[in-house]
């Protein structure tokens, strides 16, 4: 999140100026991409059809937006009322996250205007991508409804607000189901390419790995954002949020620790099942170990310690490492360890324009998020709807 969102009279804060510049460049490149084709801005080739727009924007975007379903499930299904204040921010970020994943997808799709095809006239049910598309579409709707009360409240449309709210439970359950499916399906995408993905990353468990790792990813994002908004949007937060924040952080830290631990073990079982041990002594093996030890085991232990010792700061750092770890894992699978057998000169390296567009989309997302957090009752309850949930 942008780093000085203090309520400044002037709009000309450094952050805003930077944002403006990025957005400007982004818009230019957007025009280029949609007028001169994918080839004009990307380094994609016939050997490397998927670049960072899929590897980062889609895979990481979805994984990091998992905070929505984890939090709402924790609160509404597992009755952790004390974390209630965390739900709205989480839902908001998740909603925006998914919205922008779809937005980014439009850049990557050759014929973006046909995006609805798979869900309407030409379904292709044998494809995991169909699975992903279907679930993301549905889940986006679910999130929209879950998020809408914040809007209705500001607009004071009580009826709608209560209607939306009355669906909470069913939406939450749908949310978890859909998330489970498309989080795992993103991994499932690569099940088809055993000959291209390095054996250490390829596993019949790919889908399972993606789902499990999405949980700590989501939790970590909540912790991370929670702490940031606590720092920079303190004035926007009401007492409940401020009081509950530590509980949320530590509770989630504990959960994340447990899940990361499980994930770590399962990954090794994955290696064992395909008997890929010998690859560990290769360069790829070292890289795999870096991911496993440095970005799964380490954050797991950090979280554990944080939870044991009620150390919020540590939990915050752990959340950062986890998020980085998830990003690393997704990029490894989609770009680094993919096409590992190709000669170096044929490997994919993103062009600066690709990166710029990704940055542009992320910035756009953050900006919208900032506006939401500032203008909508997300970090605080709406005076007229106190305790109405």
């Amino acid at each position, binding site marked *: 999140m942008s780093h000085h969102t203090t309520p400044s009279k002037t709009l000309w804060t450094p952050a805003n100026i930077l944002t403006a510049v990025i957005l400007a460049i982004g818009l230019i490149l957007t025009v280029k991409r949609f007028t001169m084709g994918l080839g004009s801005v990307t380094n994609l080739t016939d050997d490397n059809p998927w670049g960072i727009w899929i590897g980062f924007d889609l895979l990481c975007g979805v994984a990091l937006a998992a905070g929505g379903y984890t939090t709402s499930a924790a609160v*509404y299904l597992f009755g952790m009322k004390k974390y209630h204040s965390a739900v709205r921010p989480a839902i908001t970020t998740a909603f925006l996250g998914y919205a922008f994943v779809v937005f980014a997808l439009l850049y990557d799709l050759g014929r973006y205007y046909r995006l609805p095809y798979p869900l309407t006239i030409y*379904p*292709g*049910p*044998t494809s995991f991508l169909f699975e992903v598309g*279907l679930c993301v579409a549905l889940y986006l709707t679910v999130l929209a409804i879950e998020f809408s009360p914040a809007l209705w409240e500001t607009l004071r449309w009580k009826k709608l607000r209560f209607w939306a*709210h*009355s*669906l*909470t*439970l*069913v939406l939450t359950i*749908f949310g978890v*189901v859909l998330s489970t499916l498309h989080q795992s399906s993103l991994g499932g995408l690569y099940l088809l390419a055993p000959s291209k993905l390095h054996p250490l990353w390829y596993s019949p468990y790919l889908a399972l790995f993606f789902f499990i790792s999405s949980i700590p990813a989501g939790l970590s994002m909540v912790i991370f954002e929670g702490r940031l908004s606590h720092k920079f949007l303190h004035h926007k937060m009401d007492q409940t949020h401020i009081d509950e924040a530590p509980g949320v952080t530590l509770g989630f830290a504990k959960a994340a620790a447990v899940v990361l631990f499980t994930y770590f073990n399962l990954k090794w079982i994955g290696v064992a099942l395909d008997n890929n041990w010998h690859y560990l002594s290769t360069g790829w093996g070292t890289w795999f170990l870096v991911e496993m030890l440095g970005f799964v085991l380490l954050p797991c232990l950090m979280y554990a310690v944080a939870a044991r010792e009620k150390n919020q700061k540590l939990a915050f750092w752990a959340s950062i490492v986890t998020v980085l770890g998830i990003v690393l894992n997704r990029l490894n699978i989609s770009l680094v360890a993919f096409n590992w057998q190709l000669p170096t000169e044929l490997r994919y390296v993103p062009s600066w324009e690709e990166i710029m567009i990704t940055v542009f989309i992320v910035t756009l997302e953050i900006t919208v998020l900032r506006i939401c957090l500032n203008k909508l009752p997300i970090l605080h309850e709406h005076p007229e709807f106190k305790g109405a*949930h």
Partner: protein
Amino acid sequence: MEFMTLHDFMFWTKGMAYIGMGVGLVAFVAFWLFLSERDEDKFADTEEE
């Protein structure tokens, strides 16, 4: 129905499975409502508390 390739077979069966899922989900909600309609403290899909 005659299928020549595993792909055709999956195309059909998975399609059916998806439809089944949709129906199943909706049915589940309905069933849950029916199940918990009479509970004094509504378990139903209304907001808690």
